[in-house]
């Protein structure tokens, strides 16, 4: 059953066209990964699904209506975006005012650090708080914008496992942005490969044998064909 429907989506920042004529549907409960080089409009697309950015063309529909941030969607950002003057608990409470959020902190293994300020936490712990905040919103759609990009390889792998475990406990649709092929293959039910300038859907694939080499090859071609594009080539 379709949960998110994207029709003819287009957007430009000044003279730069970020997205052009993008159509996509996401099924309820699906874990969709948007994969592509930097500058292909992945984050722009995610912000539009979140209802944070108004498209200049086309529309995004969640269950047939415009997405309402916090109600339909919850978002995890790459740079955590924790409120630095609030403790871990208060940051999680921000998404769900007036509620006991101990359970969410426990889910991400941070009960002992509930009263710590973000500045005192490690990168991995900060991202766990951000994840707990998104889970606390209890929104049916979880949007994740390269959430583990600034973590070291070991912590990133650990967090991917944790995310899978947490998603399994709740019926959520997830749209996850990354430019890491391995990360996409580890998490996705379906991978949407995006091409840059303007951002368009190049291909949709499902994780499977031989897909790692194929996706690397496709990304390499995209970068070579677009000198302005940027691909870090991390084994994410």
């Amino acid at each position, binding site marked *: 059953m379709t949960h998110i429907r994207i029709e003819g989506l287009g957007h430009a920042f000044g003279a730069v066209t970020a997205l052009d004529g993008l159509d996509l549907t996401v099924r309820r409960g699906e874990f969709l990964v948007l994969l592509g080089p930097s500058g292909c409009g992945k984050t722009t697309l995610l*912000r539009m699904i*979140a209802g*944070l950015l108004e498209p200049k063309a086309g529309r995004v529909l969640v269950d047939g209506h415009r997405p*309402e*941030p*916090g*109600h339909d*969607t*919850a*978002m995890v*950002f790459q*740079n955590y*975006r924790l*409120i*630095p*003057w*609030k403790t871990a608990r208060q940051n999680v409470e*921000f*998404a769900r005012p007036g509620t006991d959020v101990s359970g969410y902190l426990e889910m991400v293994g941070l009960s002992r650090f509930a009263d710590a*300020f*973000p*500045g*005192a*936490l*490690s990168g991995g712990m900060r991202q766990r708080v951000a994840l707990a*905040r998104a889970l606390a*919103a209890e929104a049916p759609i979880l949007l994740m914008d390269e959430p583990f990009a600034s973590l070291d390889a070991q912590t990133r792998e650990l967090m991917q496992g944790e995310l899978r475990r947490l998603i399994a406990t709740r019926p959520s649709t997830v749209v996850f942005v990354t430019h890491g092929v391995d990360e996409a293959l580890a998490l996705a039910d379906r991978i949407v490969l995006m091409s840059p300038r303007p951002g368009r859907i190049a291909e949709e694939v499902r994780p499977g044998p031989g897909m790692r080499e194929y996706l690397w090859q496709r990304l390499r071609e995209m970068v070579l064909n677009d000198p302005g594009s940027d691909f870090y080539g991390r084994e994410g």
Partner: protein
Amino acid sequence: MPRRTCGNRAMIWALRLGLMAGVVLLWEWWAPGGLLPTPGQVWHAGIGLAAEGRLWRAVGDSLSIYVAGMASAALVGIPLGLAMGSFRLFGRVVDVFVFALAATPRVAFIPLIIVLLGLGFQAKTFIVFLGAVMPVVLNTYAGVLAADRDLIEMARSTGAGRGRIWRHVVLPGALPFLATGLRLGATIGLINTVVAELYTAVRGLGGLLAIYGNTFRMAEYFVIVAMLATIGVIVTEAMRAVEAHLSRWREER
């Protein structure tokens, strides 16, 4: 508070007191007879002024003007700065006038203030207010404008409305700026207290400064200077403590 910070603070204060003791000793040794009083003479003059009660009356007069001026500056400056930052059109219309006023030496307004408010408490308080209000307005305004756009977007992503974003993100983010504005305003306010007491009815510590300066009673003159410096240090340190408290979350791992 971490033990290391306490230790650092104690060491800094010990070094400050040591430096002051060194300066006093050097002064005692160097002071040219007749022209400048020795620290001992200043001390005795201070004891005399305190015993007569004249010093405390002057301190009371000056502090009442200072506190009234500072309170007015905070009451006007903080809401004005917040409004200028929060309502962008208002801010853009008004900020050029605030910058113009901030760049004009406040002494230029004193004749006008005397004409309008006389030579008494109101005029003095207004001179203090005029000096202190500018850093409060400008820093509060800058604090609101410096609100973290990423945090605002995060807050929007949770469904928070404008009021909630302002209360939880914009205002707390502006507080350290606001505290800095108050600290700068407090320093300028103290200077303006003395300026007001020199230019209007001669009273308070500024008045004593004028009297002892004009009659070359340098020991008493230095007592007043030392008292003003002490008030300045107490106010600045208190404001710094407030700033540190508001920024305690900045401690990084």
